[in-house]
């Protein structure tokens, strides 16, 4: 009799399954609505979550503003997807995005490998894609134009002004480089090295590459301590950056200048390194300072009043403008992905970042960077700091 019971269970299950699938199919058919969707992809969990979450909030805020203004005859829905900083996951969620026929545009990625993984997918489906935070130069190219555009500067564009500032304005020549082995750290370091070498007299004394998650930099620092350095360049993000600065101070290297890239321009850096240790650290961040952006103060206020608990981070304004560029193009040509491709590529949009237009590779022509310096426990734009007028002097200044 047990046998029969088993068959009965099986039979019931089969019937249920068939009904289930039929109802699902039917349900799927009824779902058709006039929805316009755009996809946002970024690292919302994992090691770079801070970058992705700030950008996501800014992106959502921009779309909410558009929806509430009533300028478009439809409401836009954002599909938020998490790439976990892993290309495999990114490819998976991109598949999820392109399988939805209502999605007409997408914006994504802080990690360049993730963008490498998803761009072919969006391209093959003819969906316009705006990169808001990934900095590898190869992402925007002749082959990917006009499908792929980018609102943020590439690694080279970020490092050119920093090198110019360090070599010309500060007149530093002997450099040690510490970088992490992520794409972000490595590609920035490469760009910096190439730029720095163009200045006469500049010497790269040492180059040390560390794994993300390394905690002990003392062996490296002890090694370069007595090499008569003018500065240490750090290519990486907050955690390791803070450790490097802290351990530099510990090893009596507080008189050596440390410069970094956008990855360390974060209040967390000062908090974890300690305000005293971080004093005088110089870093570059793409874009104008938020207070100098047109509508920047408004953006900060809106962001606060929208109730997001996380800071918008270095790339928030880029994601915000990416969203606005998509909606502006949409207002012009309607929610049709084929038309949007050209509309976005040929756009000339004035927003938070200034006027954004794309060159023949899809790279933004609006490239500004701001040099920041840590003063009294805050990242202050160089031109506003007490270092600029000489009332304070940077570590190691003569």
């Amino acid at each position: 009799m047990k046998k029969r019971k088993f068959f009965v269970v099986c039979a019931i299950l089969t019937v249920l399954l068939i009904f289930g699938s039929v109802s699902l199919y039917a349900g799927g058919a009824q779902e058709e609505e006039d929805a316009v969707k755009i996809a946002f992809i970024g690292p919302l969990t994992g090691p770079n979550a801070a970058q992705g979450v700030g950008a996501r909030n800014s992106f959502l805020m921009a779309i909410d503003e558009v929806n509430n203004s009533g300028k478009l005859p439809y409401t836009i829905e954002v599909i938020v997807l998490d790439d976990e900083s892993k290309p495999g996951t990114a490819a998976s969620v991109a598949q999820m995005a392109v399988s939805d026929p209502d999605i007409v545009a997408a914006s994504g990625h802080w990690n360049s490998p993730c963008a490498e993984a998803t761009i072919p997918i969006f391209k093959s489906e003819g969906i316009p894609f705006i990169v808001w935070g990934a900095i590898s130069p190869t992402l925007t190219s002749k082959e990917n134009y006009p499908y792929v555009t980018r609102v943020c500067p590439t690694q080279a564009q970020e490092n050119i002004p920093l090198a110019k500032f360090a070599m010309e304005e500060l007149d530093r020549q002997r450099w040690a480089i510490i970088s992490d082995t992520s794409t972000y750290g490595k590609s920035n370091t490469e760009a910096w090295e190439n730029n720095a070498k163009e200045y006469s007299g500049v010497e790269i004394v040492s180059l040390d590459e560390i794994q993300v998650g390394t905690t002990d930099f003392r062996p490296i620092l002890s090694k370069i301590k007595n090499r008569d350095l003018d500065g240490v360049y750090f290519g990486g993000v907050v955690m390791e950056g803070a450790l490097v600065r802290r351990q530099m101070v510990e090893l009596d290297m507080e008189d050596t200048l440390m410069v970094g890239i956008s990855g360390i321009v974060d209040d967390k850096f000062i908090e974890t390194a300690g305000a005293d240790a971080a004093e005088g650290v110089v870093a570059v961040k793409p874009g104008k300072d938020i207070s100098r952006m047109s509508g920047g103060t408004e953006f900060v206020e809106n962001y606060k009043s929208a109730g997001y608990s996380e800071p918008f981070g270095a790339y928030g304004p880029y994601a915000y403008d990416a969203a606005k560029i998509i909606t502006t193009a949409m207002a012009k040509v309607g929610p049709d992905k084929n038309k949007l491709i050209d509309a976005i590529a040929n756009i000339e949009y004035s927003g938070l970042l200034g006027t954004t237009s794309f060159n023949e590779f899809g790279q933004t022509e609006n490239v500004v960077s701001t040099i920041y310096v840590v003063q009294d426990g805050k990242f202050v734009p160089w031109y506003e700091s007490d270092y600029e007028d000489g009332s304070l002097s940077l570590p190691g200044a003569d």
Partner: protein
Amino acid sequence: MLYAQILNAVMLGCTYSLVAIGFSLFFGVLDTVVFCAGDVAIFSSFSVVFLVQLIGFYNIFFGLFNPVAALLLTVIVAAIFTAILMVLLYQLVIKPFENKSSLMPLLSTIAAGIALRELIGIFFPEGRNPRSFPELLSNERILQELPGISWRNAIIIVATILIVAILYWFINKTKIGLSIQAVSQNREAATMVGINRNLVIYVTFIVGGLILGFGGFLIGSYYAVIRFDLGAGFGLKGFSAAVVGGLGNVYGAIVGSMLIAFAEVFVTAYIPGGTAYASIAAFVLVLAFILFKPEGVLGNKSVEKV
């Protein structure tokens, strides 16, 4: 520079060694690798952060503690938390596999380590961000003429030595310590002469938990920045150190930690472009030991039990 690098290596070795001792202690008694030791140590670091905030709160409102008492209290309470956690982990993920294949507790403790890490990341406020560890030990130099020896570094070295010395006394001079040795040498014989094996195991886990608790505090103090996922790295390095020193041998664990730390530091310091390969160097050392001298530096060459 050599002096500075030796100091760096010794300090790095100290941070590895308490985790490595934990591995060896558990292995000795249970014949199984408790893989979550690194995560347990980092849990202790986070407990310290939590307690310091709590004590800061008490200080503001009640003015209860003087700094040294507060420091000791924090460290001891964090270590007790860690010991409790260790016993809980034993109950949950090690005990169910008493008489089964020894690989199962290996897998389950790896899983428990991940669970612990993720739980810190999820439930500790802003748990996935790096956080600064309170500067409880002064970073001032003891003597101006001696660079590198700050109060903190001195305390870390002395504390490590002290913990090992207490452990030596505990294992060799107390009755329960001798029972731990007996169980780790021969389980059946120990039971036969009337040693309560369960008690011995619990005591070992409490002692191991306390050591990992102090270890977490020292790690946090030395780096001053902690993150929820650091435990994986320390666990791996600690386990490697224990293997190099000879699994089950507590003193070997220290030797192993120093060997691994010296390998890492000196590859970074003296091989051009070696920094990127420092971790590889440590692992290659481990591989070499496993393949050619699996009993480690100080371990006894045991005859295969058939």
